[in-house]
């Protein structure tokens, strides 16, 4: 770096710092609100906001109290969440991470494109950080947006080792806001996470206290009739599957946190009426999907996984562990509740946006649990029954009204494709993703409890529990990258198909019926444009996170839509994305539900 460079660097750096003050003063002034407003009653001290190019992070155990019960968590620099790190695109960042635990640890920078040795996955990128060791990460930041970081060792993430990353665009942020808050949602258990996992190994419905009961049956008999009540249960019972199997863990062990605060900690972000408020939502939960809304406010979603999208206004969005969404809101009243109910409706994380500290707004009641539908189990096969059971309306597909301005794609083709196994492929080669379902030989065994023969793509499905709820809910179909984000528009040279599989009763999760330990790497060539088809042969939604390269989501017609690092794949859904690996090495690819990952829904991707 010559003199001129460093001058312009420091100049822009000064501007950057000023800009940052505007940004962090919000973070800064909001800090007292959770440091002073709720001093020590819950959780840990408030996370620091650290900026610059050099960071010292120290990992250690420490006392926490999220539930009224004293416990021990794993912290970075003494807080849960860990410090919010503010980087700038184009900078070379140095992070010295010291392990003061008695066991090895690691830090993974989620969604960041970097050399594989810096990715922080023990056993793949490096050996991990041993007790007492300081590991130095150093890499150039090539992107901007909202991301996060967390331990990739065992269940440490579940014990509190996660924090947010905000990367400011080098050319200045096109998004103007008066207030800028990170809203990191997470979950906490007072139990030992390993014991929680072991319990699921013995009884996989251990934490599900919303199972169909005899009383529910008689309720259905009186509401409909005996035959309907029985028909509603027949398939589930035959297949030994549970229609309320919406999450492996529930509020019976979890406390849901908003920026490290339980609901009664009431994390508060302060605004002035008339402000444009940017909320950077990060799902840093171990095992929980959240359905987020702010009653009284429309959220304009402007980024997904740190990447700019065409703004889309919604009342609610669902996101899984690993995903991030940036939204703008324009509050006018004194107080609003940020309400994030868990997907299984057993509890919620909650925060407040208010004009001053100490205010709160009404908290909505949890939505009623909706059973999974036949569409979730069998995909496109059985439209009728999915409608009959209150599922989404596949048929008339009012989706054309469902979708806003920014997209013009041919929805009518989007459906029915699952019923056609022959067409596109032969005619167009790799222009469109193959629709022909090909199960792996290893899916026909004890590791798999179901296979979907007629999957659906239905990007416009908000998912179980959100269909027809009267609110405008964000779907994958709404996400449309702005010009310039999808930098690689090349045709794929080959297509890989993998299925997401599991056996709930045995509590095992895998790709293609092979848990990680039995699997072999997916080998890719550097700079090779490939298509990966993911088909979900389970009844749960899996947020699939591919390290080291972007996942460019496409629709069933092969149109590129949006750039992600974590793609949620719904039950019986078949999605595809394109990737161009630019960094060699061994990369992790896994479901970001921590327990699914550890149970084996994990593949190594080898780029050479």
């Amino acid at each position: 770096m010559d003199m001129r460079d460093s001058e312009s660097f420091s100049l822009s750096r000064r501007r950057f710092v000023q800009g940052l003050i505007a940004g962090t003063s919000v973070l800064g002034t909001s800090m007292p609100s959770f440091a002073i407003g709720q001093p020590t009653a819950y959780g840990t001290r408030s996370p620091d906001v650290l900026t610059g190019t050099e960071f010292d992070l120290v990992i250690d155990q420490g006392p926490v109290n999220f539930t009224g019960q004293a416990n021990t968590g794993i912290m970075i620099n003494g807080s849960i969440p860990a410090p919010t790190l503010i980087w700038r695109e184009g900078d070379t960042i140095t992070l010295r991470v010291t392990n003061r635990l008695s066991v090895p640890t690691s830090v993974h920078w989620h969604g960041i494109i970097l050399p594989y040795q810096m990715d922080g996955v023990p056993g793949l990128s490096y050996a991990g950080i041993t007790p007492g060791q300081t590991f130095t990460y150093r890499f150039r930041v090539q992107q901007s947006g909202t991301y996060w970081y967390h331990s990739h060792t065992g269940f440490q993430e579940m014990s509190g080792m996660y924090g947010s990353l905000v990367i400011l665009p080098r050319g200045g942020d096109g998004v103007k806001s008066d207030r800028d808050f990170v809203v990191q949602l997470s979950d906490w258990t007072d139990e030992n996470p390993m014991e929680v996992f072991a319990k699921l190994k013995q009884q996989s419905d251990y934490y599900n206290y919303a199972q169909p009961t005899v009383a529910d049956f008689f309720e259905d008999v009186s509401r409909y009739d005996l035959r309907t009540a029985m028909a509603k249960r027949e398939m589930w019972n035959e297949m030994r599957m549970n229609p309320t199997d919406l999450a492996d863990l529930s509020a019976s062990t979890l406390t849901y946190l908003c920026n490290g605060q339980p609901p009664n900690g009431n994390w508060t972000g302060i605004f002035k009426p008339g402000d444009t408020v940017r909320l950077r939502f990060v799902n840093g939960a171990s095992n929980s999907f959240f359905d987020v809304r702010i009653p009284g406010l429309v959220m304009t979603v402007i980024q997904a996984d740190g990447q700019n999208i065409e703004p889309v206004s919604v009342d609610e969005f669902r996101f899984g562990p690993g995903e991030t969404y940036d939204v703008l809101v324009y509050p006018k009243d004194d107080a609003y509740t940020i309400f994030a109910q868990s997907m299984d409706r057993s509890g919620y994380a909650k925060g407040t946006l208010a004009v001053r500290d100490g205010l709160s707004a009404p908290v909505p009641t949890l939505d009623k649990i909706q059973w999974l539908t036949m569409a979730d189990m069998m995909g496109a096969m059985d439209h009728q029954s999915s409608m009959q059971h209150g599922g989404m309306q596949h048929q008339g597909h009012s989706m054309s009204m469902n979708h806003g301005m920014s997209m013009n794609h041919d929805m009518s083709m989007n459906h029915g494709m699952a019923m056609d196994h022959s067409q596109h492929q032969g005619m167009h080669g790799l222009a469109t993703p193959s629709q022909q379902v090909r199960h792996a030989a290893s899916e026909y065994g004890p590791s798999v409890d179901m296979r979907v023969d007629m999957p659906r793509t239905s990007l416009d499905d908000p998912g179980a529990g959100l269909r027809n709820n009267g609110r405008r809910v964000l779907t994958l179909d709404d996400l449309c990258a702005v010009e310039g984000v999808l930098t690689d528009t090349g045709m794929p040279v080959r297509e890989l198909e993998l299925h997401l599989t599991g056996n709930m009763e045995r509590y095992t999760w895998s790709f293609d019926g092979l848990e990680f330990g039995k699997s072999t790497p997916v080998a890719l060539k550097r700079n090779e444009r490939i298509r990966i088809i993911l088909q979900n042969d389970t009844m749960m939604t899996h947020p699939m996170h591919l390290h080291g390269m972007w996942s460019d989501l496409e629709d069933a017609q092969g149109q590129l839509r949006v750039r992600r690092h974590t793609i949620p794949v719904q039950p019986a859904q078949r999605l595809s994305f394109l990737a161009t690996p630019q960094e060699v090495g061994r990369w992790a690819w896994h479901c970001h539900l921590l327990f699914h990952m550890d149970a084996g829904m994990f593949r190594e991707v080898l780029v050479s």
Partner: protein
Amino acid sequence: MKNHHLIHSITAALCLLSAQALAGSGAMPSTEGEEQREAMKATSMQAMPEMQMQGGDAPADSRDPHAYSGGHTLSEGPYALPGSQRLRLADEDAFWAVMGDRLEYDNDDDVAFDLSVWYGGTYDRVWLKLEGDYNQDGLEETQAELLWGHAISSYFDFQLGTRFDYYADGQNRQWLALGVQGLAPYWFELDLTAYLGEQGRSALSLEAEYEWLLTQRLILQPRAELTLYGKDDPQNGIGSGLSDASLGLRLRYEFSRQFAPYVGIERKETFGTTADYLEAAGESAGDTRVLAGIRFWF
């Protein structure tokens, strides 16, 4: 992936054994036939065309799950860390549990127990099962089984091992055990085991359980058990054919999943020569017990 054939062979073998055992007893009770069909259904998805979403054999054109590996493995090939450092997840871990399915006290001052322990991974486990009675005279009839369990389908395990029978007033017996255990459609927990003993003895035991969730924590559990023997065993008061059957109903309240007290009632009936032996000894062939107990695991 030829597990399917294995299941068929096991089911066939068990049916053969049960037929042998039944030969002495006349007709097969219809409830048992029902349960057998249930077990067959469970282990033979091919018989159920509507269930192609589960089980079955891999078609010839199914994908090779290693097709994308380029010949590389987790510990070999470019950028691989040494084998000892490679990532290991919980799928390669072993787990264990101690289960007290029944630990109960009845109106005859008897304590009955049904305890088991397993250790292992997802597909292969070692099982120790203990079932018996205890009263003021000490241990009565008790069975201990040591089994290797191996997953053969989505919901069923094959089990192979030995059983040791202890009789306070009889002749202890040893058996070779071969069975299937798992979850049948409609959520029936089944355990079907055939035994081969010394001097050409054979036995068959069938257990089925079901759970009705009255609420999320109040659970009514019907339970049925049938025992058949291939040969008379007068020293132990056992006759060939259907020897005994019991039907129980237990209502438990789960304070937690791992601790649930219950009350229940169980009717046990003996048949054929077994009943004759009992009556000859001045006891009644049938017995109804009112009981209270705890169900636990850790």
